[in-house]
């Protein structure tokens, strides 16, 4: 038999598929459909069933899967339009919902290049000789994250900000616990969003890490006097800006307060670092955060990517993949995954983390976005965000009955206001006016019934702010029920 290896398509055209075997429209994914018998007979087999004879009778499924009929590409696309079209998306109206994710603008170049098949359909670059493109792009990503946060080492991404924070804590405990006066103890700001705390608890509960809440003052700032108790513990985890959007300048003094033997882990809003000092420059050992504002829309909560950067002290005990520069056998510069002996596929149960698949493609999108921005573009992005938040805040404070939850604290993207009605009612009414007015903070902290978290971004316009203000005023005038 002559095997036509150079032009399989021609061969196929000469031997069309028998139409009676085509069971559904799905079959366009199966190149060997209709040629099963030919392949089976070469193996000395007669039926597809023989391929599954090793499955014992008692565990075999007898009946077909009770699922819907196969659909054509056209049919699926139509259903996708119908179902996803039934969602009210953030760009269809003024929206002030952020609470950890940004309604960002993603440059057109980013999805177009990131979905090139060479990137999109590659696996983890285990074979560096044919993966230089992704490896170099990730090395460049590491560099940009390192520069952004002011720390020398960054990995190629965690799942999201919350798992990055959780694994930063377990990493810090691995580094510090043996010599800590308070072993296995980590102090965490009490105002970290509960969803993130929940992730942190799941990641720390089994390995004996004790989490101690650090209180905030009535101004919404971390209580630095109480924070001094964290001295001698393994780590402190705080966020800048915090969950109320506040820029807490006191955090920049934490290093001096907790001493050098306790790890300082800082969660950041990545965009804010266009105007705020990099935490690595005020003593942070590990910086984590949500990378999503660079590279991708909020996408229903994922895929997004977590940032993880640290000092060299944590390098050998940190989670995730790392790309290093090396040379090939000709002495040319080449890139490869490195320090893999930390990882699960080698170290198994003694690995620093179970992470295997990460968010590389989204990190690639982030890298493209960051590269397009450049240093001055980043600063402008942050300025636009800060300007929008300042303008929005000043405008809504002009509404009767609206006051800041924490007056006279500086903010970056978000701010919390107290309303004369419940924020749940306010949001429902604003929604009817076609405005997504923010986030009801009682969903995170029950007693905050009347507190609304308003979030802005670079795209917040004067028109958006006017509509928000009008609808909020109207909602309040409808009175409390």
């Amino acid at each position, binding site marked *: 038999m002559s*095997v036509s290896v150079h032009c399989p398509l021609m061969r196929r055209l000469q031997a069309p598929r028998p139409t009676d075997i085509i069971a559904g429209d799905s079959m366009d*994914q199966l*190149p060997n*459909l209709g040629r099963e018998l*030919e392949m089976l007979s070469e193996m000395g087999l007669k039926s597809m069933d*023989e*391929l599954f004879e090793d499955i014992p009778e*008692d*565990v075999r*499924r007898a009946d077909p*899967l009770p699922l819907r009929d196969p*659909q054509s*590409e056209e049919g*699926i696309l139509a259903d996708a339009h*119908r*179902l*996803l079209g*039934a969602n009210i998306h953030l760009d269809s109206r003024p929206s002030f919902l952020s609470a950890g994710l940004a309604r960002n603008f993603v440059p057109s170049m980013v999805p177009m290049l990131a979905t*090139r098949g060479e990137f999109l*359909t590659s*696996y983890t*670059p285990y074979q560096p000789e044919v*993966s*230089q493109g992704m490896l*170099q792009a990730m090395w*460049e990503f590491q*560099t*940009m994250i*390192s520069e*952004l946060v002011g720390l*020398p080492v960054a990995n190629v*991404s965690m*799942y999201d900000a919350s798992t990055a924070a959780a694994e930063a804590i377990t990493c810090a405990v691995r580094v510090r616990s043996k010599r800590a006066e308070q072993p296995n103890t980590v102090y965490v700001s009490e105002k970290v969003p509960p969803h993130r705390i929940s*992730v942190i608890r799941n990641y720390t509960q*089994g*390995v*004996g890490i004790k989490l101690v809440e650090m209180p905030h003052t009535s101004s919404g700032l971390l209580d630095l006097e109480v924070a001094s108790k964290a001295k001698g513990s393994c780590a402190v985890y705080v966020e800048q800006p915090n969950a109320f959007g506040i820029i807490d300048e006191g955090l920049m003094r934490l290093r001096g307060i907790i001493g050098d033997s306790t790890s300082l882990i800082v969660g950041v809003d990545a965009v804010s670092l266009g*105007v*705020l000092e990099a935490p690595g420059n005020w003593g942070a050992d590990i910086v984590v955060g949500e990378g999503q504002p660079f590279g991708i829309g*909020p*996408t*229903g909560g994922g895929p997004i990517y977590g940032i993880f950067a640290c000092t060299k002290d944590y390098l050998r005990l940190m989670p995730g993949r790392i790309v*290093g520069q090396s*040379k090939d*056998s000709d002495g040319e510069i080449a*890139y490869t995954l490195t320090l893999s002996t930390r990882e699960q596929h080698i170290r198994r149960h003694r690995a620093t983390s*179970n*992470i295997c*698949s990460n968010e*590389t493609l989204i990190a690639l999108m982030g890298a*493209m976005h960051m590269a*397009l921005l450049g240093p*001055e573009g980043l600063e*402008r992005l942050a*300025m*636009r965000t800060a*300007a*929008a938040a300042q303008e929005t805040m000043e405008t809504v404070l002009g509404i009767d009955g609206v006051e800041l939850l924490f007056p006279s604290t500086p903010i970056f993207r978000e701010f919390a206001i107290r309303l004369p009605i419940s924020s749940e009612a306010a*949001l429902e009414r604003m*929604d009817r006016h076609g405005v997504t007015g923010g986030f009801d903070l009682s969903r995170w902290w029950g007693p905050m019934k009347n507190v609304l978290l308003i979030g802005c971004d670079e795209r917040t316009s004067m028109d958006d702010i006017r509509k928000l203000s009008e609808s909020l005023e109207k909602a309040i005038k409808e009175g409390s029920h």
Partner: protein
Amino acid sequence: MTTLFDFNGAPSSGWSQPAPIREDPLSGIPVSARRASLPRWPRASEPELVRHYTLLSQRNFGIDTGFYPLGSCTMKHNPRLNERIVQMPGIDRIHPLQPDHQVQGLLSIYYEMQEMLAICAGMDAVTLQPVAGAQGEFTAIRCIQEYHRSNDQAHRNKVIVPDSAHGTNPASASMCGYDIIEIPSGQDGRIDLEALKSAVGDDTAAMMITNPSTLGVFEKDIAEAASIVHEAGGQMYYDGANFNAILGKTDPGRMGFDAVHYNLHKTFSQPHGGGGPGSGPIGVKSHLSEFLPSPLAARRERDENDPLGVDDGYWYFWEEPGSTIGKVQQWNGNAGAVVRAWAFYRRYGHELERMSEHAVLNANYLRHKITKPTPSGNHTGAFTEGAPASVVKHEFTLNMTPLKEQSGVTAKDVAKRLLDYGYMAPTLYFPQIVPECLMFEPTETESKEVLDKFAIDFLEILSEDADTLKTAPHTTFVKRVDEVLAARQLILKYPFE
């Protein structure tokens, strides 16, 4: 090649941004908190960057550029329809904290996927929140941990894994605080029931196992293994990495499992994207469902006061399981991956078993082409099969030890030489129980012609002289990369200074 940091043009953004809406954008930012110097990011225009990333992409191998038989990773074709759909604002521009009535479409897709995945695995409830296979494992073991605690069985502190298991299994259980007992595989690579019997006890929390095994063979004793673990009071966890082999033919529920994770980035064609994103939903039997992460998509019949929603007669909403472990990812998982997998599922519907049939057909066909004696016969002494089996499932392994003994050529050398022929290398040195292991998984989306050609090329490589292989690859973007040097010099970012 040029790096991003060689671009250092004028201080302007690579694409235009409007001005801030105020002239004093930083009026609210305290001076003492402001950044002293900007990050040293590149200064490049869009045309420069488009070329940079296009050139980088051309130095990368993907399924789109060639056959990718990477065992255990199920590198099947990624339908482009799925990428088109996730660009829609109804998913790209959705915030996970939006109220239910704004996301009826997404909720209905979540609900449909939860139901579909439960049916496929013989489970009672599914969460789509875990964002990778390893996170699915971790989540399921957390649920099992809470189940034991709620039954006064908190003393159960051991998780059993076969020595052929994926490394994530022991790593995930260890992150939950469990001690790991690794049991040896039998002579044929299958589970050793005697070893299992002596490993279980009053301290057994769970066993984690994949079936078919990482050798690509079906564990015929799986039901008995499950009853050994159950009788000891433990739970059975199914690593779904190899689910592509059995979908529609059997399911973990029938085999006796209590929990399972799915890899939407394997079985359901979410692109791997150079290492992620993934999506690792888990399914559980009813006794574990109350512990699942929160929230799950739920529905009730729509009443007349409800808005139309997606007009299918139901109203969808997020619901918190009664004794939930809380969150493992901050939001609702990788919704974009769920939507892609939904589009993939819709192509096949109840015909999903055709997919598995063809995955198994292709694996057996390739195995036959590689291992059958040929007239020239010069390869036959180069390898043995990783595990004896009349038929394999979706993948198979070769033990390249004979070749190494003959000529000093390692499995890695063969893998590197395959790169020269335009193929991705198979999985290397895994599972660790097979020495000099190469693990092949062709998937259902490769044609007979590709498999024929690959077998010919593979056998040809085995007959090449040892030096050619030991110094391979020769025609790739770079020659063999020095991994030891990378770990020694640790240049992990651009050296600006």
